[in-house]
Each structure stands twice: as structure tokens, then as C-alpha cells.
């Protein structure tokens, strides 16, 4: 014969299991709606405050496939490296805008810019910058030229530029523009001159 207290305990546990089953069934539908968005588009760096300065941004235009030097006023910090980062972030802001003449994906960002003497700059972009970039010789060339020209026009002394993606070297931006080597600023100037 089974003791009465064991029967009570088993019945109680069965009730608990059934109750939890009903509860899980009810909350099942809520889980997906409460899942946070996978894409977090917030900027990685805090906004910069301070005096604004006039800078030249080399903005790419898909139509007619050229770079245009444009004067912008943006807040710039005092440090040389921080200025470089801020310049490039201002440029990317132009491109991620919906009305951009050379659109980049919404998640495209500059993670860091490093200035290494003598004359070397390293631009580290995030994965979304390259992974979602449109593929084509000219469209990729415009992006690369825009970054290099903007940096070298506003930060004196830069002679070579390397572009990384998520801190790593990569063969091409999106199948065409070479990212495996350093960009020589003089050669880039000639390339941009041929574009105009």
C-alpha cells in the first residue's frame, strides 16, 4: 500500500508541473516580441563637443562617378588622432544619410583611426562598412579615394594609408578595390585627378 503522504506529494508535484506547462504555453508568444534588436545602430563613440572648424571632405558622387571637395564645419577635438577619427566619422555620416550621393549601409562606421609616424595612417572600419558595401570597381574606388583624400587633405604629413576591416587586413573592399596593401597618397592624388 502506498503511504498517503506520498500520494499527496505526487499529486502536488503533478499540479505544479501542469501549472508550469500552462504558464510556459502562455508566455511562449511573448518571447520573440521582447527579443532585443540584433542590429544596434548606436554610435560607438560619444558625440564630440567643442569648437567647430572648417574642413574639406572629399565626398563621392556615384553619378557622375567623381569626388567633390566640400567645405564642412564640424566640431573637432584638439588631438591629431582624434581629429582624424572625427573627420572620417563626419564623412561616413554623409554617406549613411538616405539622400547620400554615394550611399553606404546604415551600420557602416569608422571604429578607429591611428596615426603612426612617419606619415602612416591606419583606418579601421567595422564589418558592416565592408560586408554591406556595394560591389563594383568604380563604386569601391570612390569610397577608398574619399577616405584617403579626406584624411590627407586635413591632417598634414600623411603619405600612406591602410584600411582595415574590424581590425583585420582584407583582400578587397567588396570584391574589387584592393585593401591588402598601403595606399600611397601621391598615387591616390593622381587617381583622383584622372577621375575629375
Amino acid at each position, binding site marked *: 500500500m502506498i503511504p498517503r503522504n506520498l500520494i499527496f506529494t505526487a499529486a502536488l508535484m503533478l499540479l505544479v508541473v501542469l501549472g508550469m506547462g500552462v504558464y510556459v504555453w502562455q508566455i511562449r508568444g511573448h518571447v520573440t516580441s521582447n527579443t532585443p534588436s540584433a542590429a544596434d545602430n548606436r554610435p560607438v563613440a560619444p558625440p564630440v563637443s567643442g569648437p567647430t572648424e572648417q574642413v574639406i571632405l572629399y565626398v563621392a558622387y*556615384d553619378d557622375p562617378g567623381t569626388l567633390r571637395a566640400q567645405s564642412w564645419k564640424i566640431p573637432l577635438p584638439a588631438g591629431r588622432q582624434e581629429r582624424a577619427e572625427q573627420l572620417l566619422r563626419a564623412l561616413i555620416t554623409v554617406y549613411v544619410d538616405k539622400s547620400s550621393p554615394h550611399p553606404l549601409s546604415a551600420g557602416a562606421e569608422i571604429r578607429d583611426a591611428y596615426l603612426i609616424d612617419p606619415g602612416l595612417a591606419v583606418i579601421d572600419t567595422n564589418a558592416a562598412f565592408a560586408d554591406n558595401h*556595394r*560591389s563594383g*570597381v568604380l563604386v569601391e574606388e570612390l569610397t577608398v579615394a574619399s577616405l584617403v583624400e579626406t584624411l590627407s587633405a586635413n591632417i598634414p604629413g600623411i603619405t600612406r594609408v591602410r584600411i582595415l576591416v574590424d581590425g583585420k587586413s582584407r583582400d578587397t573592399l567588396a570584391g574589387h*578595390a584592393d585593401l591588402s596593401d598601403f595606399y*600611397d597618397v601621391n598615387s591616390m592624388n593622381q587617381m583622383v585627378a584622372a577621375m575629375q
Partner: protein
Amino acid sequence: MLMLAAVALLLSAPDEKKISIYSKAANYSLPITQKNGQDCAGLLEILEPLGTVSAKADGQRWKVRFNNVDGEFTAGKPRARIRGHDFDLHANFLIENGRGLIPLASLTQLLPQFLGGPVIFHETSRRLFIGDVSVHFIAQVNKSNPPALVMNFTSPVNPSISTEPGKLRLLFTHEPLVPSGSQTLTFDSKIIPSATYQEENGAAELTIAGTAPLFARFSNDGRTITVTAAPQVTAQAPPQPTAAPPSVTGSSSTTTTVPISRRYFAVVDASHGGDERGAAISDQLAEKDVTLAFARRLRQELEARGLTTLLLRDGDTSLTLDQRANIANSNHPAIYICVHASSQGYGIRLYKAMVPSVADSHGPFLDWSSAQAPFFTLSQSAATSVAAEFQRREIAVRTLIAPLRPLNSIIAAAVAVEVAPRGPSIAELNDPEYQQSVTAAVATGLSAVRAKLEAGR
């Protein structure tokens, strides 16, 4: 030891199982999922390229609507209801992460209900033919010297080509190729005695046996493949400057037996290929396919002008940028032409290499990234001549410099041609008339500076 065992297991892992589906709308492959000993595939994924389809999972029920046909399945049950009729499946229907999986063996029963027409399923090789889409071929050996196996296909084909001692294999992954008769063909030729057809894992393969190394070339817009023996000569390597590639393998001997068919005027490189698709020109069209079509036409146009041409990629094969430069450089052409395609912008863009202003060359060893520098003026001449020809034909053209590998590693005149449509319709990239017009302009432009280019090599 464990690491070695894991690596060995990985290396010996079989190819992923897949099913290939051929239809008038699209040819595509899908992965196979094995459940309870049955090969299954996602019904939604099968129907998606064929029409408008939507699916909804509601508990154990899975409903699908294809065009105006409704189907209903129940997870764990071997039954389906389509157009109001019940059908027995060969195994239970399954739902996995919202995907409705049906056994492959039931495809011939279910798909006609959705599609309204018959399908043919080669179950062993997992190749599904929807409608009359089959590509047939005939093969015969010409009694030329050397003998050539000429295969004529009823539609253009683009197989991957591989060789091994005594064999040349053509793998058709995207073409609904079927054998016209016997699966083994024998020929009255000592050099090409036989060819066999077989199907496996969603692909068809033609294996051509040869008693000499064989190579294949395409013509007739991809409808004809000609297989011949590669002539073998003993060649004394010419003492030319060589660009030092990043990695070097092989012997340092200067006398070697290599297959050299002839000295080419041009090396034409269809960019991308294999897994590297290049730009998505449209949902159905990849840059690698457009570049191959243009490259094949360009070879025809050049050869029609008496300019011998090597097509660097003549199938859906993967080549690294360094491999492309190596092959081009080892052939010492007068010019290297790299073909790209784009849906952005209009007309033609011609590119010369962006070469670093400071090179790191040492004697006969040229810096790999700036080996193009001594040939830049020659490349400029070629680009100018080709651009002039485009202008004469009233096709919009721009001449630019680009950081585009492997142009900067080529030790010959080198240009890249990026072809965009003339107007808003990207379908023009597939238009034979436009392809003809573009490639004829390039060939005519290069022909005009032939003497200069040949003198420069």
C-alpha cells in the same frame, strides 16, 4: 593526435548533399537535410524561385500558398492536403525552425499539384527537372591533327573544368544536362578513346579519357566545347625579368617540359568565378557569369583579327588574384585584359593600374605590387586606343586609374574593362548585340596598337 584525427576527418568529409532543380524560371541547388534516415528538403525553398510563395506555421500545422494553390501539412504525419485533395507522403512531414521539410521521394507526387505540370526526378543523383528544360549533347571526334572531340550542346553550358592524369572532367552543376544515348561513348581515336557521363549529388559530369594531356575550349556562345590534346614542347625558359610573387613553389631549373600551345598576344581574364561571384548584377545574374560571356566573345573578336588569345578562365572556376597574375605573366602576352561588369553607371570604364610611387624592386626581381610600373605607358597607349574606338562607336567611355589587383602585378600592358549597360536596363549586359559591340571595340582598339604592344614585351 586528436587534432590530426580531427583534421583528417574534416579533409575526408564528403561533399554536402544537395538537390539541383532545373526549370525555365531558374536553375538552383538546395541543401538536403537527413531526418530519420530520409533525405528531406524545405518545400518553401524549393518553390520560392518558381513563383509567389508564402508559408505559415501554426502549431503542428504548416500551410503553404504557391501562386493560387494552397497546401497543408501536419508535423509528424505522412499526409498532405493540396488543392483540397489528400496525398500520402513517403515519410512524415517535419517542421524544423519553422521550415517545412518534405521527403525527397514525395517530390514527384507533390510538385505537380503545385506547379500544374509534370516533373522528372533523378532520385539517385537528386536532379529534378521541371518542364521541358533538358540540355542534350552530341559528341564526335574529328579526324584532324591532333584529333579533337567536339561536343555540341542544345543550350549554352558553363561547366567547371578539372584535369588529372589521363582524364579531363567537365562538371555541370547548373545545367540540366542529360545523356542523349549511352552513358559511355567510345571513339575511334588513340588520343581520346572514350567519354563517360554520370550524375551524382545534384550534378552531371562528363569524364573524357585521354592518352595525352587534354584541354578544353568553348565556342559558339558556350554551345560547343572542343577537347584536344595539349601540344607538349621542350622549352628553354627565356631570361626575362620575373615579378616575384608572394609565395614561390617549384623547381629553379631553367629547362623544363611545359605545355605551351603558342605565344599569345593577349591574355583575357574573366574576373571572379567559382564561389567568388563578384557583384550581384541582379537576383539571377552574377558578375562572374557576365564577365565570362564577355571574355569568350572578346577572345573570338581578337582571334578574328589574327590576335592569338588565351582565356585565363574558361569555366566556372576559382582563381586567386595572385594565380591570375602568375598565369598571365608566365605566358608573356603583349597585353592583359581583365573584364569586370557592373549594374552601376552607364557605358564602359577602362582602368589602368594604380602603382605605388615607390617600388621595392631588386635587380631582376620586381616588386609584386608595382611590377606594372615599367609597362604603365604601354597600358596607357592601349587604353587610349580602345577608348577612341568606343567613342567612334558612340559608346560612353571613361579612362581611369584603379587600385584593382592583379593589374599592378602584371609584367605587360594591362587594362581592366568594366562594362555597365548603356541605359537603365541591366538586361543589356546579357544582350549578345551589346556584348558583340563592346568586345569588337576592345579588339579593334587593341589591334590598332598591335605593333606597339608587341614591341613592348
